[in-house]
């Protein structure tokens, strides 16, 4: 590597690079620059480092705009859809007000820099954001999981693992495009987007043209799919393959390759060569039954949830309860439907969109993908504890702070409930907004953030989670829960004690800042959707949080979770 030398050696040449990148190089210097580039490999390396820096800085300061633009693209009818990724900056050139604000900020000696600067400090930029997985669980019907393995959910990513199902049916969609329907009990080793091994159980493969060449291994057999639908059933070490449609190539016990066409079936014993048998299509999982099963399951779950909802709405400790069924731009607060406060806590929807929730077609959710999106509420009064509980599906944690429920501004007694980009849940209450922050002198006032351990990473993208946090001044503790399980508890020390709590104006899925006169705003929108959120003027106990989760969750698991 050839770092730029400092200060004199190579100075003019480096200036050429910068002038070129800034678009202000003279024609003569541009020629000189090119000559120098042509002749010197190390100078070219230096040039590329400058260009990379230029690109990074530019990308970095415009990434906030990207988000807005990305959304604009997604919500427009994308035709063709691909324009998406690269297009953003051209779609939403909000640069003009931003630029004006930038100048204002500069003139004010950078007082507003926090608003303008990209949301996170260094640590928040992941070197390489990647989710591990080459397949996803598309659908589940009555799944029962082996005792020693945790439950899996629709939308989970899977990769390089032994997928085991005690009973029920699952559909696994490989990123190659191949789809596998598995009926338990089954053990499938997932090797890549293009390869899997059925150790036991019955599977049905649906391989579209894009996934031609997908390999499925039996105990002694390798099957290469040539674009088809076929089944493989492995019991007691003996396999049986049946082609429903199309063609496969199979090689049993290292023998010659055999092409098998639709309508035929072969037995594949461990001890001898393959033999033709009569087709028995009903040995294999049925996609129609899976579809019916999973929609029946959804209907049952939804029905169970509606009675939970009605019970919860009647709980007298509840402050507000939103399930995001939009009515004329509002989300009604179910908790106060009949009381004197009727309608007072209803939330106003701004840019957020009603989308499918946990039970598509049955229950909506609110999506906060767009940077300005939010649901605004106003909840007056003074409280002595808080419990927040919601069902949320996070697509990604794009922001340094990703909002769940935040009091506007951040005044004494107001809560901030959010998730940091490293997957940690955060709950804080402003203790005294007139004293400086213990963290940073120029940050908001005196408060402490209670972090959970990281509970989310990209592999969980798209999965519905039940999150809850409790601020409990009486017992002097803050607790965080995921899917009904407490993952963190921390003491509220004397210094940070506060038990006169307020909410006032607040937002779901974003943050309404104090700088209301400013056109710019901090971007904390949650990239994901929320199915429901409940606020209690009480500190719920562990068992009660677990109960909330159990009664509102979908599906069932063998291991009692």
């Amino acid at each position, binding site marked *: 590597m050839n*770092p*730029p030398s400092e200060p004199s050696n190579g100075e003019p040449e*480096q200036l050429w690079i*910068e002038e*070129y990148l800034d*678009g*202000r190089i003279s024609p003569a210097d*541009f020629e000189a620059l*090119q000559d120098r580039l*042509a002749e010197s490999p190390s100078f*070219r390396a230096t*040039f*590329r*480092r400058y*260009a*990379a*820096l230029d*690109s*990074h*800085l*530019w*990308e970095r*300061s*415009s990434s906030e*705009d990207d988000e807005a633009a990305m959304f604009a693209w997604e919500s427009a009818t994308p035709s*063709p*859809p691909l324009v998406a*990724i*690269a297009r953003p*900056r051209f779609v939403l*050139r909000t*640069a003009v007000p931003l*630029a004006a604000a930038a*100048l204002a900020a*500069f003139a004010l000696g*950078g007082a507003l*820099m926090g608003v*303008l*600067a990209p949301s996170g*400090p*260094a*640590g928040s*930029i992941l*070197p*390489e954001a990647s989710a591990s997985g*080459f397949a*996803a669980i598309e659908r589940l019907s009555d799944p029962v999981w082996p005792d020693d393995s945790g439950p899996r959910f629709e*939308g989970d990513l899977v990769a390089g693992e032994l997928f085991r199902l005690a009973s029920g049916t699952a559909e696994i969609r490989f*990123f*190659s*495009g191949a789809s596998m329907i598995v009926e338990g009990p089954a053990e499938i080793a997932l090797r*890549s*987007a*293009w390869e899997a091994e059925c150790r036991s159980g019955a599977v049905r493969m649906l391989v*579209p043209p*894009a996934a031609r060449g997908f390999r499925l291994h039996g105990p002694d057999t390798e099957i290469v799919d040539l674009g088809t639908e076929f089944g493989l059933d492995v019991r007691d070490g003996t396999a049986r393959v049946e082609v429903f449609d199309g063609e496969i190539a199979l090689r049993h016990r290292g023998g010659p390759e055999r092409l098998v066409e639709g309508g035929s079936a072969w037995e594949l014993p461990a001890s001898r060569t393959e033999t033709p048998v009569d087709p028995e299509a009903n040995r294999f999982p049925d996609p129609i039954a899976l579809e019916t099963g999973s929609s029946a399951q959804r209907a049952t779950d939804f029905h169970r949830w509606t009675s939970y909802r009605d019970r919860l709405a009647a709980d007298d400790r509840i402050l507000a309860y939103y399930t995001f069924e939009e009515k004329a731009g509002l989300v009604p607060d179910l908790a106060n439907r009949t009381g004197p406060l009727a309608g007072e806590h209803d939330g106003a929807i701004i840019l957020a969109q009603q989308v*499918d929730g946990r039970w*598509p077609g049955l229950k909506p959710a609110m999506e906060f993908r767009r940077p300005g999106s939010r649901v605004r509420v106003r909840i007056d009064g003074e409280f002595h504890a808080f419990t927040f509980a919601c069902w949320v599906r996070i697509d990604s944690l794009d922001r340094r702070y990703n909002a769940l429920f935040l009091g506007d501004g951040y005044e004494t007694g107001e809560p901030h409930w959010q998730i940091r980009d490293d997957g940690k849940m955060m709950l804080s209450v402003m203790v005294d907004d007139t004293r400086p922050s213990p963290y940073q002198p120029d940050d908001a006032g005196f408060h402490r953030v209670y972090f959970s351990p990281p509970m989310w990473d990209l592999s969980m993208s*798209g999965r519905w989670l039940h999150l809850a946090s409790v601020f409990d001044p009486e017992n002097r503790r803050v607790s965080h829960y995921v899917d009904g399980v407490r993952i963190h508890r921390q003491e509220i020390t004397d210094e940070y004690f506060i038990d006169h709590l307020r909410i006032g104006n607040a937002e779901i899925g974003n943050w309404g800042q104090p700088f209301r006169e400013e056109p710019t705003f901090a971007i904390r929108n949650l990239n994901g*959707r929320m199915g429901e959120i409940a606020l209690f003027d009480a500190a719920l106990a562990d068992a009660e949080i677990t109960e909330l989760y159990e009664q509102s969750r979908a599906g069932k698991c063998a291991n009692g979770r």
Partner: protein
Amino acid sequence: MPDQPDSFQPRTGDSYETFVSILAHYEPDLRRFIRSLLPTHADTDEVLQRTAIAIWRKFDQFDLETNFMKWACVVARYEALSYRRSMARDRLVFRDDVFDLLAEEGAAEEEQRKAEETALESCLEELPSKQRQLVTLAYTQGVKVVDLAEEAGASPEAFYMRLSRIRRSLLHCIESKVSRIDPTKATA
């Protein structure tokens, strides 16, 4: 996928989703590569756009197990080349031999660049806050350095000089950090 946002339905099967996630992941890297070949950010954006379209068109030919960036750089290079032909002669367009050298060597340095990008974030943190503000503003979209200079009561030359010093100290900082990173891990 059962739960995709309504507006995000894959129109051409699952490969669309794979495409989107891969491209989203590599977009900064691709833009950086293209930036080294073309004079302005606007040109870079345009070619990035064309590259994305070209990649989508050819996506069914892409083997997911192979190196995406290597493949994408080939596509981007081609797109930059044909875009360059359409540009006015008086623009700051590299001649063929320089263009080819930069593209060739640039594609081979991808991993190094990736590590530098990571280092840049902490280097920015280490900058004195005034300098950090200045560089952030200079790269804010829609902001003209001339206007910034005027606002700050300085000549554009003086402003560019400050910017230049900041860039150099960033490059030095990046270099010192990256040399301490195991290159095999930086991109793991």
